[in-house]
């Protein structure tokens, strides 16, 4: 569960299809600070401890600074990397790497995304005869997913530009056509002010890209009940009640899918009293599935959060992999759990982009059987 205690929801601001809900922290966290490190346009290659590599377009990294004794930490200041003319590949070692004593460099969102891509990356653990030689020896490698950068989401740049940042604001929930696209929380308002523009360099799924094209949203206008007002104090009370109702509605309805999202949490790094972890959702189909990363303090309160909403196809892939793994990669067992035939499962795997895991002759057999049952 994600715990939003200490963050207050404020009225949303809308622009086109984008609805931005600010989160305000009355008491900012001062002993953990974040700042951004902007990289150029080249691809990034990250070597992971298990000797696999993660290649992606990583526009920026975050640097977290913290102190051990609870005294305020200073944000290191946003630096622009030297613009490099030639096309190159930037090499990173590890997703999260200590930059200095009490400073950690990590690649926002890619930490979570790598967790998703590495899901059962090793491939079948038992060499059932259906799996191809390649699947047994090399696993799912290379595994790829695609996403859109914020700059490609129609109207997002303008929405972020005209957004009026609240005093004390430490977070933002970004809705596109009222589908929660991304959540972003930082420890301190000054960090937020510095990192607000980085939202346009983040990743968003295909669903969000499409919603932004076709589904503009409208404000939820305030409505006051005039029969309950008989004095100016009553008018004020009514206005306050209206604001509280919005916050309640937002937290319990609009953001409900996010708060319950984390299903498996993995701790990545310890930063003093804070811990950096990433989470995967339950991959339930036809529901919101968010992957993300968090920094929480010792009481589990949120200091940093960044999420990515999986598209339907990505959810389906996660779901299939997880079901297969739960049944030791046995086609028969997984098919029984999914309530379909082995052949149907084989075709589903192929449609989801995992056809290369199955032996070609087995896959052909599945396709033939599926064709026979269909008409």
């Amino acid at each position, binding site marked *: 569960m994600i715990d939003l205690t200490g963050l207050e929801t404020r009225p949303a601001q809308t622009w086109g299809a984008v609805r931005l809900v600010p989160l305000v922290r009355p008491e900012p966290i001062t002993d953990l600070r974040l700042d951004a490190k902007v990289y150029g346009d080249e691809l990034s290659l990250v070597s992971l401890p298990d000797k696999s590599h993660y290649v992606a377009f990583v526009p920026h990294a975050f640097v977290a600074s913290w102190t051990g004794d609870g005294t305020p930490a200073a944000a290191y200041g946003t630096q622009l990397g030297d613009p490099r003319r030639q096309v190159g590949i930037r090499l990173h070692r590890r997703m999260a790497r200590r930059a200095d004593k009490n400073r950690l460099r990590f690649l926002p969102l890619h930490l979570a995304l790598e967790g998703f891509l590495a899901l059962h990356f090793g491939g079948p653990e038992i060499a059932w005869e259906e799996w191809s030689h390649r699947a047994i020896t090399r696993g799912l490698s290379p595994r790829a997913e695609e996403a859109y950068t914020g700059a490609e989401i129609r109207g997002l740049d303008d929405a972020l530009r005209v957004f009026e940042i*609240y*005093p004390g604001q430490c977070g933002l929930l970004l809705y596109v056509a009222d589908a929660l696209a991304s959540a972003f929380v930082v420890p301190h308002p000054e960090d937020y002010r510095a990192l607000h523009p980085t939202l346009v360099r983040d990743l968003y799924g295909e669903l969000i890209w499409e919603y932004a094209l076709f589904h503009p949203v409208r*404000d939820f206008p*305030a409505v006051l009940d005039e029969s309950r007002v008989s004095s100016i104090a009553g*008018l004020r009370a009514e*206005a306050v009640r*209206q604001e509280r109702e919005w916050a309640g509605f937002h937290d319990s309805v609009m953001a409900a899918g996010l708060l319950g999202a984390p299903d498996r949490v993995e701790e990545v790094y310890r930063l003093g009293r804070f811990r950096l972890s990433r989470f995967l959702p339950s991959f339930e189909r036809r529901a919101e599935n968010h992957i993300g990363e968090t920094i929480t303090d010792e009481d589990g309160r949120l200091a940093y959060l960044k999420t990515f909403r999986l598209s339907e196809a990505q959810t389906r892939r996660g779901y299939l992999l997880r079901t297969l793994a739960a049944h030791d990669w046995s086609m028969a067992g997984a098919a029984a759990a999914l309530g379909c035939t082995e052949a149907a499962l084989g075709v589903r795997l192929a449609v989801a982009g995992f056809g290369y895991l199955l032996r070609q002759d087995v896959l052909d057999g599945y396709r033939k059987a599926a064709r026979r049952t269909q008409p």
Partner: protein
Amino acid sequence: MDTYADLVACEDVLLFVNAAITGTGQREFHGTGHEQRFSLDFLHRYVHGNYPDIYPAILALDINDHNAALIIRNVLRAPGAGSGDGRLIAWRLGRMSPPRVYRLFGELRRDGVNNRRTRAIMRDWLAGRRDLAFDAVKYRSAVKAAVRHAHLPLEGELGDFLFAPRSRTRFETPVLEAWRRAHYDKTALYELPYTVAEGFAARHGIDRKTFLERIAPRLTRLERLRLAESGRAGGVRTGPDLADLAAMPLVRLASYVLALPAATREERRGELTGALRRSAARAAGARAGTWGSVAAVLDDSFSSFGSPVKRRPLAVALACHYLLEALAGDYTGLWLSRRTDPLKVRPSGPTPLGQRIIDALERRPDRLVIVSDGWDNAPPGLAAEVLRVWRRRLDPAGEVGVVHLNPVYDADEFDVRRLSPMVPTAGIRDAEDLPALVELATFAEGRTGLGELRAYLADRVAQR
């Protein structure tokens, strides 16, 4: 009895007036310059096509120079249009800055508009210039183009200066002679206007500090204001002094104050506040202190920044603050950010208009003035609801007069953004117009019809 068509006409005209007061075709916070120009252009065509008799009369109102130039251009371009508005056009041209008039002439030339009326207007305007030789030096190519376009015979050396400057070895007019000598004589260029002298200084390789020091007496008031900060950085004091500042129009002065860094504003607090108060007192004139108790809700949210090319909304709010202070007997100014020091305002934060309107109404003033771009977002629509409930339940007799003034033209709505149908909204550009706008806003409340509006316009035209 007004017909439905009359009501529509009345509404169209008011909408157009609001647009013509605020819209300048420049980029705003929420819209690009292109959107603004496109929207304004449509509105001009619409009003010109549907109300050809009212369209030129709008020149008599306090609309901005950009729209006045557009109206003049459209009116002159229309073949065989009414001839009664020549005097009004001449009067309006007289109030515009010369560069803008020359630009208008250039546009007329580009459009190929060269009818007798246009030529007569250009001739009369040029004849009315105090010192055409000075213009010929300062706006050389523009004057040349205008003279050529209007087929004006120029007597004496001015014609030679424009069209054959090398044909004479000496000019009798001092400014023309200074221009000729400035080509080779370093000291002569200090007798020229600043913009022209700057070019010669670069040509002679005179360093900036010396140049600024010696040209200082020739600077116009605006140039002095513009060069004050860069000059100070270079150790040159080009002004402006307190008298200069106090003589500025109020919004221009507010813009200057807002452009200063916070520390400088603090340092020169006495001087700046004094200048703002004096300028406001001058704008209020005889009305000073007659408005009773006034409360104002002033928008300093992030959107009041405007855009890098037009940082106007916050300056208008600051100017209104000082003007209302001068007009009112008892004044309270409420900034949205809850800052209390008007000299330190800066655009940041959301727009909780509803809450601040409640704060203002709690004091039960005689008048409530809201200066905002109308993007009420914390929460959205609360201001409209507060005003509605206030009018329905708490003040049905309308004892508190509420007016919303909006400095920003909204390209999508072809109007300034309104807060609530219960409250009149008027566009505002210069704080000096505030009293007249409050007058005009009563038309928007629907109490008066097209007949009165025409009479009002005719009255204003007759005054000009």
